[in-house]
């Protein structure tokens, strides 16, 4: 039998494109070209252009694979030029999933910023799928403006779940905004979970990750229970090319979710 080529992408079709905010769009890919668990990522290929790593935003239990993507560079720009029905490539899944078994019976504390909420959505949906296995799920989410909040259409449904506790904040509000103001740390004054045992999960822009991590450490969360979605330059996704290495850990293979314990010795882990 011929060995599977880990560099080859599987062809897939874009089923639907949903603009979320001015520069963030969700791409729904038909079927499940790859099986993944919450926390793992995939490389998406734009034919003839290149590939980039993304964490799915859909539930691992869903029928289609979704990615919510911000336009930031060459590959994402090319991705934004694709249309429904176009072909792209998927390679993965790569990296380690969240240890959901360890979260069972505990409160789960999730902190997201901006488009960083996309990979957290996949986790949130996986948690909701087995919601009775967990004590309560807390979500703290900050965006720049109300217009930058992703998945607005899903919020009302999520808010109805009694085991889900939400707080939102925006840096700059508008006339419709009735929630909190300020960067995401303003909604972290109160931490209603047992920090000795609860896992905290963080994903967002580097500066936000840095301040949120500081806050969580101060609040007393265990360093090995603070899970951080790390962004590094990636190429191969399989622990060979060396691009993603952060200290001695490979973000692609040991991550992309690493704990504060894993990265706290690195001089500047959030860039």
């Amino acid at each position, binding site marked *: 039998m011929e060995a*599977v*080529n*880990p560099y080859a992408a599987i062809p897939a079709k874009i089923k639907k494109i949903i603009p979320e905010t001015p520069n963030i769009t969700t791409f729904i890919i038909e079927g499940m070209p790859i099986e993944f668990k919450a926390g793992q990522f995939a490389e998406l290929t734009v034919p003839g252009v290149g590939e980039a790593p993304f964490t799915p935003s859909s539930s691992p239990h869903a029928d289609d694979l979704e990615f919510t993507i911000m336009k930031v*560079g060459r590959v994402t720009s090319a991705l934004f030029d694709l249309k429904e029905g176009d072909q792209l490539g998927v390679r993965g899944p790569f990296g380690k999933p969240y240890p959901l078994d360890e979260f069972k019976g505990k409160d789960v504390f999730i902190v997201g910023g901006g488009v960083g909420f996309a990979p957290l959505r996949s986790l949130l949906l996986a948690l909701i799928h087995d919601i009775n296995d967990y004590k309560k799920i807390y979500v703290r989410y900050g965006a720049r403006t109300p217009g930058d909040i992703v998945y607005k259409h899903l919020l009302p449904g999520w808010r109805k779940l009694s085991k889900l506790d939400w707080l939102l904040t925006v840096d700059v509000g508008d006339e419709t905004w009735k929630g909190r103001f300020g960067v995401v740390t303003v909604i972290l004054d109160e931490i209603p979970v047992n920090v000795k045992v609860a896992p905290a999960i963080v994903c967002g822009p580097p500066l936000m990750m840095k301040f949120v991590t500081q806050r969580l450490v101060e609040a007393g969360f265990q360093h090995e229970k603070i899970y951080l979605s790390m962004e590094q330059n990636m190429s191969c996704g399989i622990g060979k090319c060396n691009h993603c290495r952060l200290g001695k850990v490979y973000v692609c293979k040991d991550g992309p979710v690493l704990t504060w314990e894993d990265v706290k010795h690195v001089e500047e882990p959030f860039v």
Partner: protein
Amino acid sequence: MKTYLIFLDKISIFVTELAKEGSLYYSKLENGKTHFVAHHENISIEPEFSKIRTPENMKHFFFRSRDLVARFPKDKSPAVSKQFLVGLKNCDLRGIDVYDRVCLKWQPLDPLYKARRDNTVIISADCPEPEECCFCNLVGLNPYPDAISDINITRLERHYLFETLSKKGEVIIEQFKDLFIEAGKEDLKERDKIRKNAVKALEKFNARSLPDNISERVEKADKKAKHAARKDCVECHGCLHACPTCYCFLLSDYRKGKETERIRTWDACYYAAYARVGGGANPRSKFDDRFWNRFVCKFDYFMQYEDIYACSGCGRCWRGCSGKIDIREILWKL
């Protein structure tokens, strides 16, 4: 494994016979140094083993500077043909050892590397006369191979002594058994003497061993030490491309008709854009940190992963360096 003798003048017959079965590359004497050259038909082969490793590094044979690794939408594995490499030295084999671990042991395995490795016969040779640039002894190697290759050759006074180091090697000797006789105790004694002298010569060049806790020292180096280490570097990145144990690469896609080709090219951690992320931020934007990355990678991390240094002591980085930076001097100062 087993040892055999072949008369000095018979080696070219042996190598010429091998060349009928695939591409053959061997170390050839040119202007006082040996270089790796491809064998072409009707030219007699005179491999030379008396010198140290060739200036060119052998990673091309497994991992070309530009390799097609996948196609889209329909992938097809490339055809890999048989190759014989004659005259690699132990430091070259450390490079292969590093690649074997990264590409074969660490999952998922790299299929192109595996195909090339499976289709390669490696015939290595002792280094009877190490040179000033050599420090394989400081990174845990001897100037003579005893693993990784399929056959190893030591030149004795009147014979070449062949030692088979793998099943593949055994099969080859069996195939040409008319050319060989079995080696005796005296021959092994002669080899031991040659090897002892080689080790002595190496020790003369490298009287100081590396500090035991080199990994820790490399990890703990302060800003001043990192800055001092790179002061003569002109950022040509030659050391990384000449290095047999460096293997960083980058994947890029190119359109070819209706297909996309995924090309793997050598990369180097000294390039400013190497670690830059999609949004533009760069964790190693300062050259001091990039320069030091090579040291932590080779002497700290790889040691932690695999219990060997990702450095072979071949000295190519020093020989090829415009600033004449000797990696040993940096390590000794830590």
